[in-house]
């Protein structure tokens, strides 16, 4: 259809008005295409800038940059390794996904199957409003409300009960009682990505043809059997896509995490130890680093790694969500 229209729009046609039209058409089309090129150039520019500015650090430390756990910006004994921040980024995001997915599924199930019609819109809007709240607000709320709560009520209970489990108990025991920890960061991230995952799930659950569900109900299936046997298999790809979208968001989240993770450049032994993420290290150290210093180059280099990780996750998410829509 659009092909047909565009052929008409630029068709060579004799006559004064038509000529004026096609000049205008050519100009407008190039304006639009130029804007599209700006978008391509921006992303290309981001990748190139991060890589070039990070190159001195990559060259100086080689492959060890990714695996080294030393991060020491003190002058004279500068040493930079990305492993701790990569570890913190990945672990906090994966924990966040583990917390958020069951709750998001519950909300989507509630909104599509359980809730009466009059309740669906207000509850759906409320969940979407969670997505609109700026990350700095999550950070402040996390620091002044969630962190004290984790410190007082969660950390000790977990440490005393789950800490007794052989072999993996140490994950829940920490000597740090500040409350700012990987766990707090993951909890804040989980609340932040909850609306994205829940909204995607709700939207794709609604796309399941009613006939499929009705035939399952007709066979005597319970509501849960319809959802687990028909709705989830039908929407599996998009559901995973939605989860990946949430993961992509969590990986790059900066401010909320910076407030609650404790920003410690040590390898965490437990989920209640303070840690750091790539984005928080950049936010904490970049404004104070010297232009052209090795530290600044190392910060660009971890920025490049963050871009790489989130690019892979976001591209996968998009592929999963798109391929579903098309067929």
């Amino acid at each position, binding site marked *: 259809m659009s092909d047909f229209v565009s052929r008409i729009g630029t068709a060579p046609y004799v006559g004064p008005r038509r000529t004026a039209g096609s000049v205008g058409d050519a100009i407008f089309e190039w304006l639009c295409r130029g804007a599209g090129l700006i978008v391509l150039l921006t992303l290309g520019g*981001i990748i190139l800038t991060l890589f070039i500015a990070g190159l001195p650090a990559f060259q100086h430390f080689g492959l060890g940059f990714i695996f080294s756990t030393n991060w020491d910006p003190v002058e004279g004994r500068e040493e930079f390794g990305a492993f701790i921040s990569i570890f913190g980024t990945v672990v906090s995001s994966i924990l966040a996904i583990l917390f958020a997915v069951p709750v*998001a599924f519950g909300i989507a199930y509630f909104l599509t199957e359980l809730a009466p019609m009059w309740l669906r819109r207000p509850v759906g809007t409320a969940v979407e409003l969670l997505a609109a*709240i700026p990350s700095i607000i999550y950070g402040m709320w996390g620091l002044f409300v969630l962190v004290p709560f984790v410190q007082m009520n969660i950390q000790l209970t977990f440490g005393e009960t789950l800490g007794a489990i052989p072999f993996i108990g140490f994950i829940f025991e920490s000597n740090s009682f500040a409350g700012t920890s990987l766990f707090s960061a993951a909890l804040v991230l989980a609340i932040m990505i909850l609306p994205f995952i829940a909204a995607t799930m709700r939207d794709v659950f609604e796309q399941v043809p009613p006939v499929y569900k009705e035939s399952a109900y007709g066979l005597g299936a319970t509501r849960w059997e319809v959802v687990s046997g028909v709705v989830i298999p039908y929407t599996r790809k998009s559901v995973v896509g939605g989860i990946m979208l949430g993961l992509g968001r969590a990986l790059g989240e900066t401010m909320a995490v910076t407030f609650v993770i404790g920003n410690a450049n040590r390898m965490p032994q437990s989920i209640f130890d303070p840690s750091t993420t790539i984005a928080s290290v950049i936010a904490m150290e970049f404004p104070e680093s010297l232009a052209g210093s090795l530290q600044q180059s190392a910060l660009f280099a971890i920025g490049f790694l963050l871009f790489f990780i989130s690019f892979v996750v976001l591209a996968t998410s998009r592929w999963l969500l798109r391929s579903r829509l098309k067929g």
Partner: protein
Amino acid sequence: MSATDAARLSFRDPVAARALGRRRSAMDRFITIFCLAATAVGLFFLASILTTLFWRGFAALDWTVLTTEFRPTTYGDDTLPKGGLLHAIVGSLIQVSLATLVGTPIGLLVGTYLAEYARDSALGNAVRFVSDILLSAPSILIGLFIYQLVVLPIGGFSGLAGVLALAIIVIPVVVRTTEDMLQLIPATLREAVIGLGAPKWKMILLVCYKAAISGIVTGVLLAVARIAGETAPLLLTSFGNNVVSFDLMRAMASLPISIYQQANSGFPDLIAIAWAGALLVTLGVLAINIIARVLLRKKS
């Protein structure tokens, strides 16, 4: 237990059939309760964030906060003058409005390109993909990019750099809504315009944009709401400033940055001001979101 097993069991043995039925409905009830609880948890967090914000924000929000610049902590001494957020409010208004002015036309043109010129072309698909990636890419990396591109050549943090970083965030939001809205316009409308002999660009500018205007405005509003709370990229571009400044070539304050700095200062009076700022930002962002929703609902 598969469905055929269940059928066979219930056919042969009524006791087993009843047990199976009980198990199935118990499972269903368990999931129902779990989902109700999950929804309650989600709503509880929203309520907790909003009540904390309103409670502490309104306690600290007064005329002084809106009309004075930053002042250092008073250490609880009431005779010393209190500071405020005027510098941050002014800086945020300048940067957000300029970034919207820069980003919107580009986003609009890109959305038009995707919907009207390149629905299935290779370049169109590439632009669509990259725009989607930019929509969710870590915003702090956009800050690093602008730092290298603008801050280093100028030789210092500047409002201009902040504007450009925010503009990059505006573009993909506007692209998405513009493309979606233009694609909703029925083909018959386009055919009618072309059939009257209008060139394509007039069709787009005078008819398609008019038909999609509420959706496009919604996209712009959502973009404004998004950048109004952005902090991370500004930390590396406009950085923050303690006085009211209109100079785009120098560091410029913004509400999110002031909130970040004052919330982490450790002084109760500064933290209170940070809550007031947080309340202002959230009220603005939520109001814009609700207006955008109403606009979109009118359309449909």
